[in-house]
C-alpha cells in the first residue's frame, strides 16, 4: 500500500480533530476515502453523496492535478503522493 499525505481543508478539520494534514495508506482515491473513514469516522459522508459519488462541491487533487483529469476515484496513488481535498467554491474570477 502506498503511504500518502492528505491535506484537509478547514471545513473538515473538526472531523480530523483539527489536523490539517494526515498520513493514510491507500492504492486509489476510492480506497483512500474508505481508509480515511476508518481513522476519522464521519468523514466519508462529507466527501461522497448517497449514491457513493464524490460530492459535486468536493474536489480531489493528486500532486496538484484535479482527479477529473486523471482517473477520477480510480486514480492510482504512488508512495509519497500528496492528496489535497479542496472545496470547489473557491474560484471565481476572479
Amino acid at each position, binding site marked *: 500500500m502506498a503511504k500518502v499525505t492528505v*491535506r484537509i*481543508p*478547514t*471545513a*473538515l478539520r*473538526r472531523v480530523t480533530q483539527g489536523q*490539517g494534514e494526515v498520513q493514510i495508506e491507500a492504492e486509489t482515491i476510492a480506497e483512500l476515502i474508505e481508509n480515511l473513514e476508518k481513522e476519522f469516522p464521519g468523514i466519508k459522508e*462529507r466527501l461522497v453523496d448517497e449514491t457513493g459519488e464524490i*460530492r*459535486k*462541491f*468536493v*474536489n480531489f*487533487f493528486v500532486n*496538484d492535478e*484535479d482527479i*477529473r*483529469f486523471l482517473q477520477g476515484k480510480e486514480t492510482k496513488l504512488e508512495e509519497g503522493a500528496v492528496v*489535497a481535498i*479542496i*472545496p*470547489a*467554491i*473557491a*474560484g*471565481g*474570477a*476572479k
Partner: protein
Amino acid sequence: MAKIKALKCKECGREYPVEPLHVCEFCFGPLEVEYDYDEIKKNISRDKIKKGPVSLWRYVDLLPVENPTVGLNAGFTPLVKAENLGKELGLNNLYIKDDSVNHPTLSFKDRVVAVALSKAKEFGFDTAACASTGNLANSVSALAASAGMNCYVFIPSNLETNKIIGSLVFNPVVVAVDGNYDDVNRLSSEVANEFGWAFVNINLRPFYSEGSKTLAFEVAEQLGWKTPDAVVAPLASGSLYTKIWKGFNEFKKVGILEENEKMPRMYGAQALGCSPIYKAFKEGRDWITPEKPDTIAKSIAIGNPADGPYAVKVTRESNGDMEVATNEEIIEGIKLLARTEGIFTETAGGTTIAVLKKFAEKGVFDKDEVVVAYITGNGYKTMEVLEGHLNKPIHIKPTLAEFKEKVVGQTINK
C-alpha cells in the same frame, strides 16, 4: 444587523453565523447571505434609492454591509442606448451597461471588491487577498491601497502585461503562479486555510458575490424601474451572471419593481477555448466537467467554475441560452463595439458582443425587445490582442503635399 439573518448553504440549507465562512461544513456547498426580506421591504423605496449616493451604495439595503467604507465611488456606470450597434443587429432597444468605466479600476470587479473589503473592514481584517484572472487583482490592489490594508494578489503568470502593471502600480505583493487560473485558485484556497487574510473571492465569497447584484439594480433603475426582456453577460466562474439574475428577482421581491414585472431571459457568453458551463448547459448536465483553458479571453478563462451549476440553472429557469465565441469572433466583437458605439472593451466584452450578435442573427430577440449587454471590462487592459487586427497609422512628413498625397488620396472618396 436586522437585514441579514444568517449564512445559508445553497445545497443543504444548513445555517451558519455571519462570519468569514464560505463552505458548508457538511456538504461543501457554497454559503449565501440569507436576508430578512420583510424587514428590507419596510425600509427600501424608490425615493430613498434616488436620494442615495451616486454609486452602488444607493442599494445598501440589499447588500451585506452595515457600514460602507471601501470603494465609495464604485458602480452607477452609464447605461448606453446603443443606436448604431442596434441598427447593425436589427434591435431597436439595445443597451450597453458600460462597466468598462467603473471606478477605480475599470471593470465590474470594483463592485464586488467594494462590498468584500467593506465587509473585511467590519470583520477586522488587515490584509486583503484574491486569486485573479487579472481584473480582480487590479481592483483588490487599488481598493486595499485606499483602505490602508496589506495586499497579496495571486495571478497566472501569463497574464496580459497591462493587467500585471495595473496591479503592481498600487504596490501589493503580486504572486505570479506558473499555471492557469484553476491552479492559482487551488493554491489560494490552501493559502486561505493557513493565513487569516480576507481572500475576497474565497473566504469572503458570500459577501463579495453579492456586489454583482448591483448590475441588475442599476439597469432596472436606469430603465425607469423596469427589467429588460433579455440580458447577455459573460461567464467565468458564473458568479456575476447568477447574481445579475438574483438582483432582478430581489428587486421585485422587496417591491421596488411592480408585482407583475417579468424577469429577463438570461443569455450567457463563454469563449470557445474555455466553455465548461456552455457545454454543461447544452448537454443538459447539471454538473461541470472541468477543462484546461486555451483562449485569448484570459479574464474569463476559468476551467473549473465554482458557480457553474447555478449559472446553468439560471439559464434554464429564465428560458435563456448560451453561446461561445472563437478568438477571431472575440476580436471582431471588440472592434464592432468600438466602431459602432465608441466603447473600447476587453476580451470578455468582445466575447459578450460576439455572442450578442450570434443570438441576434439567430432571431432569439424580437426587434423591439429591450436587450441589455453587460460590458464588464476595459479594452486598454488587453490591447496586445489587437496587434495585427487594426489599420496602421498613416506616416507622413509634416508637409501639406504629403498630407494630400498619402492621406487625402487614400481616405477621402471623391
